[in-house]
């Protein structure tokens, strides 16, 4: 009955999820704390007829993943901090050429080689704005090992459905923690494949403006010969140097994500309704925060939390809604306030917004959160 109950590490759950979603190609370059993802992929993929390749660096890995996806295989790469920086140019390429792929970034302390083995949540903004210019992106962040499995499947699904690179923004705590995972049977979880062209090859427009804003994708070798370029291109895929086409393309790229927020935004609400103070949190911080919320409740302080599972696009309307009537918002995160700034941008009330931050490689404990909150509350009462 329960032979699919597994005791997995976050990084392992990521690979299992990827294979469940149909991953058949992985290209990567080892870096702590993401390395186990490459190692397990290299062991598992040949067993299912898939392929693993260790490339010469992260730039090459990202390039190979795009090539692999265009060649018809669901493709993934995994990296950490400095490697994520290296991938950025080609992530931008995947955005404009609309090639589905998944990029896992198990964050580590930085900048630069920083803190290789310590946890961090410092790449929130790099996930959003790491590549140049304006473009949409989807980034998901799991709070547990079993959620890592689930969100990896969703990352592949979003990438295929919306023809876009999707970033799985993990942290070292989740990546290296072991927890129970009930691996779903085939068919239990939805698996989405890219939309294929239904027209003759001479009628195919690789970047057609369809109603859903997502063009059908022919893989190379399937009889539709077309051009793929990172330059601004028209519906046929050929470069154009026209302001109106540039605007049209960017509008469609943004539109295909922004018009599907209901589908893309994943979040969890915990004891928000009657709460006075609200936490906004993500990744491993959701765990410390949950315990802090429970502790505060036990002491009669009405706390609640909002957990972002989809980090990008940012759930703007939802944040506005849940922060209404709250006296205070606390944003604990293992960086110097990257999510807090997003919240501040959105919440324009008298409500005070406080960051609880650490970027020194140390996890923020529930006690630390409790003490911080009580410190602020005490000060307010004194005033």
């Amino acid at each position, binding site marked *: 009955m329960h032979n699919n109950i597994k005791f997995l590490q976050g990084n392992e759950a990521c690979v299992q999820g990827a294979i469940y979603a149909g991953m058949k190609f992985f290209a990567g370059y080892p870096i702590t704390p993401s390395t186990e993802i490459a190692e397990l992929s290299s062991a598992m993929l040949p067993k299912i007829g898939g*392929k693993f390749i260790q490339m010469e660096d992260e730039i090459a890995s990202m390039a190979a993943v795009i*090539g692999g996806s265009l060649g018809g295989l669901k493709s993934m790469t995994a990296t950490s901090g400095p490697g994520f920086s290296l991938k950025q140019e080609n992530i931008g390429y995947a955005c404009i050429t609309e090639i589905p792929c998944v990029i896992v970034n198990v964050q580590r302390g930085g900048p630069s080689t920083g803190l290789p083995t310590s946890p961090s949540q410092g790449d929130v903004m790099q996930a959003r704005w790491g590549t140049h210019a304006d473009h949409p992106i989807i980034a998901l962040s799991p709070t547990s090992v079993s959620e890592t499995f689930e969100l990896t499947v969703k990352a592949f699904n979003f990438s295929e459905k919306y023809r876009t690179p999707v970033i799985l923004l993990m942290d070292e705590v989740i990546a290296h923690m072991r927890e129970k995972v009930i691996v779903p049977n085939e068919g239990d979880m939805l698996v989405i494949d890219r939309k294929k062209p239904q027209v003759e090859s001479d009628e195919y427009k690789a970047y057609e403006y369809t109603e859903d804003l997502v063009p059908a994708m022919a893989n190379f*070798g399937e009889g539709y010969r077309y051009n793929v370029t990172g330059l601004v291109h028209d519906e046929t895929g050929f470069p154009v140097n026209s302001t109106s086409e540039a605007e049209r393309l960017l509008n469609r790229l943004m539109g295909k994500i922004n018009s599907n927020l209901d589908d893309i935004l994943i979040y969890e609400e915990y004891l928000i309704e009657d709460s006075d103070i609200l936490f906004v949190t993500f990744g491993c911080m959701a765990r410390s925060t949950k315990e802090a919320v429970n502790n505060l409740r036990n002491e009669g302080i009405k706390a609640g939390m909002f957990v972002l599972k989809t980090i990008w696009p940012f759930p703007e309307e939802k944040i506005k809604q849940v922060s209404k009537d709250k006296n205070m918002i606390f944003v604990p995160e293992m960086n110097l306030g990257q999510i807090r700034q997003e919240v501040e941008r959105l919440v324009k009330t008298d409500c005070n917004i406080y960051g609880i931050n650490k970027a020194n490689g140390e996890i923020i404990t529930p006690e630390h959160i409790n003490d911080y909150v009580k410190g602020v509350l005490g000060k307010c009462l004194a005033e």
Partner: protein
Amino acid sequence: MPSRIIKNNFRVDRLPHIWCPGCGHGILMRAIAVAIEESNLDKDKVCIVSGIGCSSRAAGYMDFNTLHTTHGRAIAFATGLKVANPDLKVIVISGDGDASAIGGNHLIHACRRNIDITTIIFNNNIYGMTGGQYSPTTPNKEKGTTAPYGNIDKAFDICQLASGAGATYVARSTVYHVNKMVEYVKKGIKHKGFSLVEGVSACPTYYGRKNKKGSAVDLIKEMKHKFIDISAKDKLSKDDVKNKIFMGEFKDVKEPEYIEEYFKIIDMFKKEMSI
């Protein structure tokens, strides 16, 4: 009326190309088309992958699956494409700067892996697209817009580089010796493993002008005299080869190919499962 070669292999509606008058890149692009045509390949399986540069613009003109990537990364994109679908005939077109400067790491590692990709390098000894800066193949003492007093770097010999890194077919020709170019590209396509064909090109606009080499025709004429076939090497005296550059086939060997080796691993599990 476009010729049969043009009609069969080019996106006629994308022509004329935007290369400067006298640029050698068009001659090399046509040589590749002729080689593909004469190799009787299934057009739907041919993929042309290019990087960024004047040379890399070739992909857009050619009527195959074409992938115009980021600067220097064409070979890495091509690697993923080929591994994902080994039925594809993957041909990379790259400039000397694209392939040996920013893309140098990918070039040597693709050679080392001996993955079944054919890479053709349009070597005009300069960065054309960005306006004539010196590249890793600009000869020592020659000029570029970023080497106004003469280049002090030592130039790469791309064929030696590829041979040393493990490519299993390596050849060089020029836009003057265009029939040889066709022959080598054909052999490269047929070769199982990583093949590299260097096509020496002419950039009259920047390289020619900066180094006072005369007209486009003068540049191409110079190739006629400067390049001698490697097969004649033993018969030539030191004086004969002074100031000359070798062309021809430098390497043609059989070695295990990357994807074939990978399939052996996959097959291992297939067998295990069938027991």
